[in-house]
């Protein structure tokens, strides 16, 4: 009794002491934790929880080795108490060492097999993907506590183990057989009403994986009453597995009857009719029944849905016996019914376009269809507007007109319709509804006219051929004759301003792009929630290189969390290459955190699925993890963020940066990247990448056609993204490993091998880039996505320069006698390369600047970015080269010196004798590097002062003349006059800001170069 009392008192005392320690740990007062624990351990040396908390404090202080020593000691004692186990679990989580934690829990649950410890052990095994151990732990739990959940865990573990084995592996079949036996025995021991849904799901999954379809049907019949389910669990999975079993067993009649009865219960369910048509359209016996089912639908349930179902059938069965005239008359009737019941629904266009825009329908039927939809002259309700929007969308797709005049005419007609819709919108706005957001959104449905108008005008930029030139001039002349009175005032004003300086003439193509930008800015002011307008406007601004403006528009999309993976591509890469370094850094960091946070938490979600018996989700979660963490966008985001960080280290050397977060030396930055740990580090080339970008948003904005340009763009740009990722990753490896080797003055740990592999990787990918040039024509120019940036990157010679510079430095390190053996020859070689690169770049940029236009600005800005970035890397490599030479000289000096004396041993390794340094190392000549920077700076300054960037290229007073006769007076008054100057200023400001950022980066490089010359760049921090 007294012993019990003593132990109880001791436990209370320990708890009280621990509480204080926990508080300190929570506050991250690590030093205090150490002193408190040490004091405690003096009194109670056998206190594993306190020791573990000390280890945790050490981990948080970055003293991992010391922490490991303590942890090893604690683990060897096999602790079982809750406090120690929890503290250990935090420690190993922070060390990212789940396997050791798993072993700790296995040992603890063996020593003291409690339910709590064993469940913790199971979860730890889930985290480490140890399926066999998971299954055994779960079975032990079930044996001891007889809870069905534990049985579910055991079977689910078996199934996931089987799934991860190759199909021919005997272990797979064994696991499935074992799972089936376990489940059938378990179910046999229970009454039917005692069976849990999750267990039944597991049984059906096991049977279907073994292709035991008869057994699947029997189980469904016995437990749920299929084909007429009586059970409460009418789960989607049951429906899926039932239909699959019938199909596999060839029970077509049963399947058809089941699907038919389900469809009659809910004719809105598209997947049912889709399945009926797909499965049975060609079946000799059931095919006619499908036909009569659809006829019955059309007769008894005339609706938009019935018409679409029949259209689906007609499309799928065409050429299979029906005569052309029968087919057309059937389609005509369907179209009529669809229009009658559905043309006023906003989804009409999306639902019907793929049936209508096919080669099966002749021009005549298409024309007839347009008449069926009809277009209104006056709008009296929101429905009439919706119907007309559908009309215009379908007309855009069915009757595309490459003629620029027709496009402008279409755009004007649409804008006219937009203004006509205003009356309905204002009556809706002044209704009794109090919510401004919601009502504005619906009232502004007519702004879809602006979306169609802008997309029609912008579509021209998907083509390479310029058939616009001179067309507008022709229109101006034509319009003056026709609408002479309307334009008289403009003519007068234009005459008055004839003497004004006309700085920049917009070309015909630019005129149309500006027209669409104006329309979209106007539309967004009226309805800021229209995401279609916003996306189109981002495309337009990125097309002309006004990235800062595009960035501002994109904030309205509020891209966040997982959307960075699917939608980030709309803006992120253009921002990164547009000179907006601070925004890029912020964007890339936020986007990367989505993946890293998920990576940290993903196993906890999997554990939740086990915990709550959602066994069907386990496989789905595993697949999702692969899909997200193998995302090519993730890889690019990670690599670009690191490259940006390396490039920005010239700021630290310049000493001009006030942000301490950026004040990091190249060495510190390089050391922070983890290449050796493949699990936690940056991807290497073997990985299979996924493409999760969401292109469906763009589909509505583009014309639907058989060529599927968007799919081509997604495929082609996805491939080039992977290529880009491999090249950029290799570049990152080259730079960081080079910096680390020279700074640490040792070549070990496979660093040189990694450099060689990276060089090989870049060369291989450069070869595949040459093939891209041929592919360039296959994919239309799609703003921001195509052509791939690598082409520019290679064409400017940036990559070759970095490769050459790295080659020289590498030679200086490994073969000093042949490469940079004598002091300075390495730097001379590098200087020559910089000079030739700079000359090439200057010529290329000057050529572009000579014929500069708004449409070229995007390309020019990206060119400048590539060169600025390359010069930053080059500056860092010069610094590296200089340090490498110093190291070499030190080694030479050591070799020449007499056998090491006791005093020289005391000197720090690699630290040169200051006297030797002063006499043998002349200041490096970096004039070529300076010259390259100066030359680029001058070019940027020249560009900054050009008409296009220094002030609005065409103020409204000047521009009026450009637009004379091209667009109507109403458009001029409502859209152009109020928005022109604002938009122009926005574009010019954007150019200015971006170019200023480039100049700032160059100035920082200058300071960094000065530091190299004085021998102090990249030190410290």
């Amino acid at each position, binding site marked *: 009794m007294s012993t019990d009392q003593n132990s109880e008192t001791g436990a209370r005392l320990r708890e009280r002491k621990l509480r204080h320690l926990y508080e300190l740990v929570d506050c991250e007062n690590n030093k205090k934790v150490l002193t408190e624990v040490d004091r405690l351990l003096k009194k109670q040396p056998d206190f594993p929880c306190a020791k573990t908390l000390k280890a945790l404090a050490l981990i948080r202080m970055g003293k991992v080795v010391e922490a490991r020593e303590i942890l090893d000691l604690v683990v060897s004692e096999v602790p079982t108490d809750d406090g120690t186990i929890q503290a250990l679990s935090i420690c190993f989580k922070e060390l990212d060492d789940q396997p050791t934690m798993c072993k700790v829990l296995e040992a603890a649950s063996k020593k003291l097999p409690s339910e709590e410890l064993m469940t913790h052990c199971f979860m730890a095994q889930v985290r480490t993907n140890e399926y066999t151990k998971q299954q055994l732990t779960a079975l032990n739990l079930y044996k001891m506590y007889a809870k069905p959940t534990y049985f579910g865990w055991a079977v689910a573990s078996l199934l996931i183990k089987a799934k991860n084995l190759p199909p021919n592996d005997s272990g797979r079949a064994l696991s499935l057989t074992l799972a089936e036996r376990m489940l059938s025995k378990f179910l046999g021991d229970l009454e039917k009403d005692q069976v849990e849904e999750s267990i039944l799901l597991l049984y059906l999954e096991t049977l279907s994986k073994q292709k035991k379809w008869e057994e699947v049907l029997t189980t469904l019949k016995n437990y749920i009453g299929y084909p007429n389910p009586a059970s*409460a*669990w009418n*789960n*989607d999975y049951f429906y899926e597995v039932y239909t699959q079993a019938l199909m596999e067993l060839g029970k077509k009649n049963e399947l058809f009857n089941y699907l038919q009865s389900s469809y009659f219960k809910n004719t*809105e*369910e*598209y*997947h*049912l009719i*889709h399945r009926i048509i797909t499965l049975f359209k060609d079946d000799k016996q059931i095919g006619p029944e499908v036909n009569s089912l659809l006829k019955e639908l059309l007769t008894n349930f005339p609706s*938009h*849905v019935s018409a*679409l*179902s029949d259209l689906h059938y007609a499309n799928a069965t065409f050429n299979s016996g029906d005569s052309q005239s029968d087919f057309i008359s059937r389609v005509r009737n369907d179209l009529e019914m669809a229009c009658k019941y559905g043309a006023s*629904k*906003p*989804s009409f266009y*999306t*639902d019907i376009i*793929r049936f209508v825009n096919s080669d099966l329908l002749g021009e005549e039927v298409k024309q007839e269809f347009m008449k069926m939809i009809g277009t209104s002259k006056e709008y009296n309700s929101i429905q009439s507007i919706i119907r007309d929007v559908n009309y215009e969308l379908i007309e855009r797709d069915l009757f595309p007109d490459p003629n620029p005049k027709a496009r402008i005419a279409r755009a004007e007609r649409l804008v006219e319709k937009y203004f006509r819709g205003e009356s309905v919108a204002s009556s809706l706005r002044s209704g*009794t*509804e*109090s*919510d*401004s*957001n*919601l009502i504005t*959104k619906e009232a502004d449905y007519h702004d879809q006219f602006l979306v169609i108008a802008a997309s029609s005008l912008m579509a021209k930029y998907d083509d390479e051929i310029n058939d616009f030139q001179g067309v507008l001039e022709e229109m101006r002349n034509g319009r003056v004759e026709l609408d002479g009175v309307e334009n008289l005032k403009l003519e007068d004003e234009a005459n008055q301003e004839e003497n004004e300086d006309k700085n920049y003439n917009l070309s015909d193509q630019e005129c149309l792009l500006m027209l669409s930008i104006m329309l979209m800015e106007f539309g967004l002011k009226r309805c800021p*929630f229209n*995401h279609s307008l916003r996306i189109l406007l981002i495309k337009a601004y990125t097309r002309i290189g006004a990235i800062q403006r595009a960035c501002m528009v994109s904030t309205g*999309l*509020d891209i*966040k*969390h*997982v*959307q960075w*993976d*699917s*939608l980030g591509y709309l803006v992120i890469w253009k921002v990164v290459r547009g000179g907006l370094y601070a925004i890029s850094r912020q964007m890339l960091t936020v986007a990367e955190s*989505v993946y890293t*946070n*998920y990576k940290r*938490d993903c196993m906890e*979600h999997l554990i*939740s*699925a086990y*915990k*709550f018996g*959602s066994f*069907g*989700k386990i496989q*789905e*979660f595993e*697949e*999702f993890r692969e*899909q997200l963490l193998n995302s090519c966008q993730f890889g690019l985001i990670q690599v670009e963020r690191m490259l940006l960080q390396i490039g920005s280290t010239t700021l630290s050397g310049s000493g001009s940066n006030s942000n301490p977060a950026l004040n990091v030396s190249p060495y510190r930055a390089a050391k922070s990247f983890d290449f050796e740990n493949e699990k936690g580090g940056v991807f290497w080339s073997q990985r299979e990448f996924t493409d*999760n970008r*969401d292109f*469906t*948003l763009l589909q509505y904005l583009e014309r639907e056609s058989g060529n599927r340009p968007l799919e081509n763009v997604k495929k082609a740009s996805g491939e080039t993204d992977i290529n880009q990722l491999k090249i950029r990753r290799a570049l990152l490896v080259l730079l960081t490993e080079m910096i680390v080797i020279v700074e640490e003055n040792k070549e070990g740990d496979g660093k040189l091998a990694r450099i060689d592999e990276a060089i090989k990787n870049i060369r291989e990918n450069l070869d595949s880039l040459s093939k891209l040039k041929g592919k360039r024509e296959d994919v239309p120019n799609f703003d921001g996505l195509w052509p791939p940036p690598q082409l520019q990157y290679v064409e400017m010679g940036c990559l070759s320069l970095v490769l050459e510079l790295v080659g020289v430095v590498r030679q200086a390190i490994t073969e000093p006698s042949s490469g940079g053996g004598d002091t300075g020859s390495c730097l001379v070689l590098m200087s020559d390369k910089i000079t030739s690169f700079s000359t090439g770049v200057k010529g290329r940029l000057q050529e572009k600047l000579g014929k500069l236009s708004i449409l070229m600005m995007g390309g020019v800005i990206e060119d400048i970015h590539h060169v600025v970035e390359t010069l930053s890397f080059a500056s860092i490599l010069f610094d590296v080269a200089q340090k490498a030479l110093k190291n070499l000289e030190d080694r030479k000096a050591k070799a020449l010196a007499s056998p090491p004396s006791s005093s020289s041993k005391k000197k720090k390794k690699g630290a040169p004798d200051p006297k030797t340094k002063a006499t043998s190392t002349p200041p490096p000549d970096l004039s070529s590097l300076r010259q390259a920077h100066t030359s680029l700076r001058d070019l940027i300054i020249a560009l900054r002062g050009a008409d296009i960037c220094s002030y609005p290229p065409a103020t409204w007073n000047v521009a009026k003349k450009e637009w004379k006769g091209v667009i109507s007076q109403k458009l001029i008054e409502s859209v152009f006059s109020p928005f022109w100057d604002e938009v122009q200023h926005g574009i010019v400001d954007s150019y200015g800001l971006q170019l200023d950022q480039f100049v700032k980066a160059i100035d920082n490089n200058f300071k960094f170069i000065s530091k190299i010359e004085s021998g102090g760049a990249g030190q410290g921090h």
Partner: protein
Amino acid sequence: MTSLKPFTCADLFRFNKVNFDPLTETYGLSFYMTYMARWPDYFKKIENTKSEVVGYIMGKAEGIGENWHGHVTCLTVAEQYRRQGLAAKLMRNLEETSEHKRCYFVDLFVRVTNCKAIRMYESLGYIVYRTVLDYYSGDPDENAFGMNSIMALMRQINNVERKMIFHIFCLPYRYAKGFIKRRS
């Protein structure tokens, strides 16, 4: 023409068209994953004929004893697919799931200014039973109506009885709160 299906993880890459709606929040990944892991039956989507996600509902079952109920966390339909009864379809599905789980009622929160949604919920038999101040954070914060529907009861009674309940319990509350302004 649409299909009702379970929401899967891969749909998180494809739900952007729906989430661009200004009143639809995009949550962190953990939030969605938790709902999928804990209440998979309560997370459903609507797909169009192109298999694009055009609407979804996310909910849960919670509470103890008599308070065991279904809860609608998020219900949204893309602008292009509104006025087709899809929200009602999703709500019915959630109610059926709640009924299978033997919930006593289903509740939800809705912005006090979201008249369209309030009307839709009322047509489905939901009544406003309380106002939660500053429930929605924003600039400024916004109040929410707590609405609920008694599952089995609401399904059994006819429309006349439903209107009576609405007039007895719901309208006075809304007049008192100034939600409905008397028209002259």
